């Protein structure tokens, strides 16, 4: 006999009495309908968790401030890290996850002048960005509210973008990219593979409008005139994401390891995105403008200015103190850990961990409901 959602959720949340848990578990092994219902329940749970995490007070390490709403495809569940970050960010697979916010485009090391216009990521480094910083930036920006028409600042053309990645097989995804897809060792569970096809965004800035805005904010450095009307090209290559659905590890029950909540782990890989600056534009002049933006809090400005290797560095904002630079098998990486809710009875629920690194020109990420230690172990197993 099938179970109602209420009972299944009790099971999922570890709130069933032991005998009942055994009965539900046994039933789930044989009933596809209930198993499917369980997946939907877990997905809803993750969704609510991500949204409500944004309400937690500001002295806690802050969750990403915006949860994007995307129309749910009927019957398709969204991976946990997507609930957390939204397709926009995940599709950029950490490579461009916060590329727009990183301010740290850097030329490829030492080649001819026109090659210096191509910015690619070779190194990933953290920049601490707290909720307080975001608030300050928000406050400073809000002074311009009503005076600036953002649409007037420029125009953008997207080529090849798709509303969301398409589901595919591992084999097909492997064919679509020119590097080896490395999967973590030791993850048991069902797996879906998604491919985001390459896309290019060409944008042109209207220098007068932008400079007017900069002046409004008190910037002393303005964009050079030669930027006007010239196309910047931002190329995002093919991105592969592999989403695992893993029966959870025990929420404190040594007798029944399979009884905990379902967990989701996402693995992503892509070549570095590329920003091409138009002919005749001095990238260093652009950098000057960005670093000197008056609404940047001092601690951000200091960190930007302190990036000693402007060549090949991409900065990833870490929220609060939960992110740091680490090394795994000699490869520099960034890890971000978010802990479970701070209620008095947290049921042993794990938080989320994310590890991002760049190896041999491929940016990889692993993210999901696991401990820091597990995340690092998985990442290590993906490195050659």
């Amino acid at each position, binding site marked *: 006999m099938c179970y109602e959602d209420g009972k299944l*959720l009790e099971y999922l949340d570890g709130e069933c009495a032991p005998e009942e848990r055994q009965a539900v578990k046994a039933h789930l092994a044989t009933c596809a309908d209930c198993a499917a219902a369980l997946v939907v329940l877990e997905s809803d749970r993750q969704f*609510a*968790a991500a949204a409500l995490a944004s309400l937690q007070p500001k002295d806690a390490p802050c969750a990403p401030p915006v949860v994007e709403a995307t129309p749910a495809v009927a019957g398709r569940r969204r991976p946990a890290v997507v609930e957390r970050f939204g397709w926009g960010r995940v599709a950029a697979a950490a490579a461009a996850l916060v590329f727009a916010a990183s301010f740290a485009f850097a030329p490829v090391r030492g080649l001819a002048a026109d090659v210096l216009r191509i910015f690619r990521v070779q190194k990933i480094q953290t920049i601490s960005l707290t909720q307080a910083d975001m608030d300050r930036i928000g406050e400073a920006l809000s002074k311009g509210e009503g005076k600036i028409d953002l649409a007037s600042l420029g125009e953008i053309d997207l080529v090849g973008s798709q509303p969301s990645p398409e589901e595919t097989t591992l084999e097909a995804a492997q064919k679509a990219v020119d590097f080896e897809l490395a999967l973590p060792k030791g993850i048991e569970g069902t797996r879906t593979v998604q491919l985001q096809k390459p896309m290019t965004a060409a944008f042109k800035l209207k220098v007068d409008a932008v400079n007017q805005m900069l002046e409004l904010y008190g910037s002393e450095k303005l964009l050079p005139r030669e930027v006007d009307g010239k196309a910047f090209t931002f190329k995002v290559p093919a991105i592969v994401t592999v989403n695992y659905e893993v029966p959870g590890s025990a929420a404190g029950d040594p007798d029944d390891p399979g009884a905990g909540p379902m967990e989701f782990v996402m693995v992503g890989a892509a070549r570095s995105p590329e920003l091409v600056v138009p002919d005749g534009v001095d990238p260093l002049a652009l950098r000057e403008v960005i670093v000197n933006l008056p609404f940047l809090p001092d601690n951000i400005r200091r960190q930007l200015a302190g990036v000693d290797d402007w060549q090949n560095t991409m900065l990833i904002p870490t929220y609060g103190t939960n992110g740091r630079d680490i090394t795994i098998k000699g490869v520099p990486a960034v890890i971000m850990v978010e802990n479970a809710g701070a209620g008095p009875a947290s049921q042993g629920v794990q938080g989320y961990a994310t590890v991002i690194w760049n190896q041999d020109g491929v940016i990889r990420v692993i993210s999901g409901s696991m401990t820091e230690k597990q995340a690092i172990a998985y990442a290590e197993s993906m490195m050659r």
Partner: protein
Amino acid sequence: MPMPRGDTTLIDDARRADAPRSAQTDFDAGAVFRAEQPALLRHLLYMTGDRALAEDLAQEAFGRLVQAADMEDVRNPRAWLMKVASNLAYNHFRGEGRRTEREIRTAADGDALAPDIDAVVDVRRCLEALDPRDRAVLMLRHSGFSYAEIADSVGLAANSIGTTLARAQRRFRDIYENGPAPARRVI
């Protein structure tokens, strides 16, 4: 900590029969306040989103604790405070009623450089569009309370929390993605 009410009464009666009838003598209100106030306030701020209200409710909860400690043994002040605070927040939700009419989406300024960014959905407004009990159960669960604790705070049987929570999570997502249902007219 949450026990079937019948047993609690019996045990208390037994204790009172033996012990001297006096207030809980080791209850140091000042110390408890200093220890518990930050977490209490944080919890109420999360639940209500309104600092002034959170402070009022925290004060109310604490006042009740002091009174209760006068009459009986409060074993776990933090748990007691959280339960009462959650209950006060729940009562507040009921007082507010459901905001089904309110616009819950506020569009971010059209950004010329990133036209695909979706509208920022106001999480709190979606919560306000839920039935007050669903809203309370949902919020309490996602700040780490057990089903039994939630049941205590909102006056439901523990074995109906699963159903309520499943419904609340589904409704919340529905509202978040599709907007609140239009107000139904009861004929």
